[in-house]
């Protein structure tokens, strides 16, 4: 058996190639779920009735008036559900609720001949509500003791004692905002009862197997009666890991009841008001440092805002707690975690899955404490890096910790930091109303699902008699380039050109019981499975070729569609010839591949174990310029060094790093989710429910100069072709933007002062941070913020 990490000569992995659908993307011919509607006949369209209360009991619902609207075919309510009326796995998310738990929750769905008919039908439904008291903010929920799920504690050492004896001791509170996924493609499902009588759901889902399970349990069917297919998604980012299931179930229920295809596509407003987002967090902390700035102890309580149901809040919280150390060794630590239950959308997975929130807490602490310790912030960070041989607070050795220092050093050189600091000092001295600054932050991110069982994957590989190859695996494509990488893995494992490999859409009837394409693990897990399947076939073909070439099977080599022997230079067979021979020798030409990540264990009650296969490392330096008058700013430059192991697909990986960084910068600077927290009629309504009120980065938020370097000679043993996951870790590199803003704000002040910065650091937040530092401008009185200083 070949080692997972070893590459053959002339591998197809590692070659920069475009996204496998790039040409279809640019010509508008790549199909997404909702594009299939025009290809289907007789389709019904679904529209929800959304409750206008944050919390209310449903007293009565009159659906008859909707049925009188021309074109309305059916109103779906709880009484139509033959199976379990729940859209989640924890049975706390009724699909058709009797109690409204958040403003805008769907209480029933209308099916119409047209979308307009369904919408008008929804307007005609009469619902009597008894409004109930609601909790919206973290502050309200904490005061009311409204929590859900486990309340884990992560501890190491003697934090109280260490705080007592620490030379410097600080404390603070930091509450920061969530993030709307804003995948460009909103949730979409198209359900039909197909020719064979099974329920077939085309769905924009990151987790087809779970979508299948939920559809089955809502319809009271077995899983084998439901097939879910995901052609591709127009972005997922975690927002389609749990959230699609209920919508798919509504479409499937409608198709089952009417016998007609049912399309359920959320418009943007519905998507923002119905689906979960990144968890906002509240952190209360106390930290101790020695005279050299080394962290001695950290005590913190992290409270996430889980919204109305548990969803993925527990594993998100666990990951946050496992990343509150980020890249830093903290000998004594105690972190408590809680999930607030509020009357909001059910907050869920979002790229980083709690990791960003955990890291943001410690980076905020370091950013705030550095001036008080009299240590330059990037130096303070460097001094606290993990060293080889040290372990995380949850007991996992930090393998390759030395890469942190190596990456940091490389970054400082590549980004020309020393020279630029001088230029920035000159610029700032010459510009009273503009200040520039650098922020430099590291990332250490654990790869694998915290829950060990999810770390498995399957693949199905067919080789046809002409030598062409069709691969299928359990992962979904949401733009991250997974399918591109899987083609490269298969081409490498079979020793054929990339053009030999076609990838078929992800379906639950091809590979069963798959894990979500999430936790950055898509390529690690499915790549392992694809490689395994290909190697089964390849080893059978080696026997066939060995007989023909009259050599030992171990000496057969597959390379670029040619099959030859070790040391041969003038004789080879074509891959197609060998395949052809294999068929006539009755050698199976297909294989099911399987992969499970070795060596993982995790005790979620003790918060101890080795949940991660490895850590991803990276570091970024960002330069910003802040305008004193308005608090507006620009990102002048970003430089990144990131560890993706030996890249499977460099163009794809660089794209993930850049895209993750900009998305992270959006979360920390621009993307400002607001709810109506007043006591008025709109209490609980998402105030930013459209693209005109919720702003994500546009081209003007891209760093004007943007340099990404992949860390070299970074082979990760035990992972497919020596690579590392890349989906999530780069998002957290954007903390450097926030820290640069903090430094630029500080540059307007007298120096040596701790700067508090709200998150997101909108221009308004930056403006108030400057105002606080510069008392001569006291005419602009500052509103209270949610953070309080050390």
């Amino acid at each position, binding site marked *: 058996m070949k080692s997972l990490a070893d590459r053959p000569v002339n591998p197809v992995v590692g070659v920069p190639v*475009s*996204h496998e659908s*790039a*040409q*279809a*993307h*640019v*010509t*508008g*011919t*790549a199909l997404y779920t909702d*594009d299939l509607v*025009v290809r289907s006949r007789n389709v019904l369209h679904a529209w929800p009735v959304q409750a206008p209360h944050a919390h209310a009991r449903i007293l009565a619902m009159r659906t008859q008036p909707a049925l009188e609207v021309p074109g309305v075919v059916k109103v779906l309510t709880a009484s139509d559900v033959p199976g379990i009326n729940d859209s989640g796995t924890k049975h706390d998310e009724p699909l058709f609720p009797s109690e409204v738990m958040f403003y805008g929750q769907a209480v029933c769905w209308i099916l119409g001949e047209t979308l307009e008919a369904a*919408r008008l039908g929804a307007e005609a439904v009469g619902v009597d509500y008894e409004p109930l008291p609601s909790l919206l903010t973290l502050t309200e929920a904490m005061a009311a003791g409204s929590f859900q799920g486990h309340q884990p504690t992560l501890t190491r050492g003697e934090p109280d004692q260490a705080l007592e004896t620490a030379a410097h001791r600080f404390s603070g509170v930091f509450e920061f905002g969530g993030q709307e996924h804003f*995948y*460009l*493609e909103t949730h979409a499902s198209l359900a039909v009862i197909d020719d064979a009588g099974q329920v077939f759901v085309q769905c924009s889902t990151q987790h087809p197997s779970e979508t299948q399970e939920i559809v089955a349990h809502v319809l009271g069917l077995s899983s084998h009666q439901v097939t879910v297919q995901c052609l591709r*998604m*127009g*972005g997922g*980012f975690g927002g389609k890991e749990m959230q699609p299931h209920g919508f798919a179930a509504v479409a499937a229920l409608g198709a089952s009841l009417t016998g007609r295809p049912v399309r359920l596509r959320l418009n943007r*407003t519905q998507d923002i008001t119905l689906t979960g987002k990144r968890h906002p967090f509240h952190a209360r902390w106390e930290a101790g440092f020695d005279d050299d700035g080394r962290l001695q102890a950290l005590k913190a309580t992290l409270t996430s805002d889980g919204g109305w149901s548990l969803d993925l809040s527990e594993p998100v919280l666990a990951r946050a707690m496992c990343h509150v150390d980020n890249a830093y060794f903290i000998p004594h630590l105690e972190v408590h975690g809680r999930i607030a239950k509020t009357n909001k959308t059910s907050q869920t997975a979002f790229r980083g899955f709690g990791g960003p929130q955990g890291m943001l807490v410690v980076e905020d602490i370091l950013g705030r404490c550095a001036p008080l310790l009299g240590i330059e912030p990037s130096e303070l960070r460097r001094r606290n890096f993990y060293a080889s041989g040290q372990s995380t607070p949850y007991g996992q050795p930090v393998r390759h910790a030395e890469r942190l220092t190596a990456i940091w050093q490389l970054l400082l050189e590549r980004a020309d930091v020393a020279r630029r600091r001088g230029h920035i000092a000159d*610029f700032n001295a010459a*510009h*009273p*109303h*503009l200040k*520039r600054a650098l922020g430099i932050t590291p990332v250490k991110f654990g790869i694998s699902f915290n829950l060990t069982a999810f770390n498995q994957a399957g693949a199905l590989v067919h080789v046809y008699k002409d030598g062409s190859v069709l691969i299928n695996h359990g992962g979904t494509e949401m*733009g991250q380039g997974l399918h591109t990488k899987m083609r490269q893995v298969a081409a490498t494992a079979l020793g054929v050109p990339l053009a030999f490999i076609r990838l078929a859409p992800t379906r639950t009837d091809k590979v069963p019981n798959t894990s979500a394409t999430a936790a950055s693990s898509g390529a690690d897990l499915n790549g392992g499975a694809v490689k395994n399947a290909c190697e089964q076939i390849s080893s059978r073909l080696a026997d066939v070729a060995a007989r023909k070439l009259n050599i030992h099977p171990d000496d057969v080599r597959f390379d670029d569609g040619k099959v030859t022997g070790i040391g041969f230079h003038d004789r080879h067979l074509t891959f197609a010839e060998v395949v052809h021979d294999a068929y006539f020798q009755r050698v199976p030409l297909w294989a099911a591949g399987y992969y499970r990540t070795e060596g993982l264990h995790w005790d979620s009650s003790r918060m101890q174990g080795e949940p991660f296969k490895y850590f991803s490392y990276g570091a970024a330096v960002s330069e910003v*310029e802040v305008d004193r*008058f*308005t608090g507006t700013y*620009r990102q002048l430059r970003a430089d990144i060094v990131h560890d993706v192991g030996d890249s499977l697909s460099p*163009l794809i990986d660089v*794209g993930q790093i*850049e*895209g993750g*960084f*900009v*998305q992270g910068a959006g979360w920390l600077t*621009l993307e*400002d989710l*607001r709810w109506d927290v007043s006591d008025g009629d709109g209490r609980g309504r998402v105030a930013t429910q*459209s*693209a*005109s*009120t919720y*702003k*994500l*980065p*546009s*081209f*003007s938020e891209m760093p004007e100069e*943007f340099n990404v370097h992949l860390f070299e000679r970074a082979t990760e043993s035990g992972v497919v072709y020596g690579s590392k996951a890349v989906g999530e870790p780069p998002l957290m590199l954007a903390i450097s933007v926030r820290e640069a803003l903090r430094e630029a704000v500080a540059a307007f002040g007298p120096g040596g002062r701790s700067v508090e910065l709200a998150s997101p650091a909108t*221009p*308004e937040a930056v403006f108030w941070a400057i*105002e606080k530092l510069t008392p001569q401008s006291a*005419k*602009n009185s*500052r509103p209270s913020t949610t953070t309080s200083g050390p």
Partner: protein
Amino acid sequence: MDRIKVVVNGQACDLGGTGSHTRLLDWLRGAGLTGAKEGCAEGECGACAVLVARPDGPGRSRWTSVNACLPPALAFDGQEIITAEGLGSVAGPCAEEDLHPVQREMADRGGSQCGYCTPGFICSMAAEYYRPDRNPAQAQKETGTGAVGEEHAADHECGPNGFDLHALSGNLCRCTGYRPIRDAAYALGTPPATDPILERQTRPAPAAQPTRTGAGGARFLRPETLGEVLTILQEYPDTKLVAGATDLGVEVNLRHYRPPLVLAIDRLEELRSLKFDDGLIEIGAALTLSDVERGLDGRVPVLDQLFPQFASRLIRNAATFGGNLATGSPIGDSAPVFLALDAQVVLASADGEREVPLSEYYTGYRQSVRKPHEVLRAVRIPAPLAEKAAFYKVAKRRFDDISSVSVAIALQVTDGLVASVRIGLGGVAATPIRATATEETLAGRPWAAGTISEAAGVMAGEGTPIDDMRASALYRSAMLRQALLKFHADKAPAAEVAR
């Protein structure tokens, strides 16, 4: 009823039977052209962008990128459209690969990840690729001086090939972080003279033609003359006038507004004048902002500050000043500028025309002195313009965002004294307003830090700003004050500003 048709990707298609509220996007998708997508349904994300052949001076046309999610399909009666599918194609069993240069660069450079926004980006990028005045030499000159930190350095976001990155300001991508898209844009060459899409620009755009369709409560009319419009308005005062549909489209899509009669006025010659003489500049109400930007060619510098900050290129290619002023939103960006320019609006009715100072035009939230049977025909700016003028927009995002506060200032200094000053404000009251108390504080006083500081304090008290999701009331007030300080810092010699 006339035959209603549109040419899409070179093929004539029948628009007959299309509803008056059916958007171009839905019509295209229903016709099987699913490349254009709905991302937001309000003209913010550009996933729906397509190209339309629009007039470009005598005898020429220009491929213009517009959002398909906002305008009614019927507004394109007689027009020519190209979608991403029409620009190029992938290899298939019966077809050779034939990618357009824009598609080639985007595909090869990693410009697409999930691909959902990509067809829209392709169309915006193609419009810029074919822009007749895209000029590599000019670009090099400009980028040479566009050092970061310079005021309005963002205006220099321009590639060595003359590609203006603002062409993509109305397209959102959630995946890539934009760098590969920028690289693709900047790598584009010049279209070969044989390119039929380029060649099309050497002929006039399809002539305006009347459209009359629909029945009962959903009619769409495009009259041939202003006179006809005014007659219809007399008879049906609840008619909805539409030009670029960038406001109406949002109302239709998000608030499900279904006006019974939509009257398209954007191709009426009477509303498309652009005149300048010694005493006056007149801008036709139905010219798009992009039309005006090209036509004025820098004659009103403060408008050149406004243009890149007004929504996005996709919107500016459809939206009109007439629409922006007539809808009367307190956060419309053009009103503060026209207030500072002391503009008049020209209202036409069957009885004739009247001129109203913009400062007297608004009477309440989205209310004005315009009567239901009147059309806002043009806006007039008196000359000469004040020598010092600026437009400041404060928003969360640098471009393509809605103002938290916008401030336009036009000020004349004579012999060191403020000889005249007009300040227009947006986002701080139910209507766009003049900062009259601040103007009074400044008038006749020295153009100096002391006066400015005092006036800035007055400015902070202008209007009645509110807290909302965009900004707090306190920040809005602070920004009023800061705008005046910034104006002085920008416009006064450095020595005067030093504090």
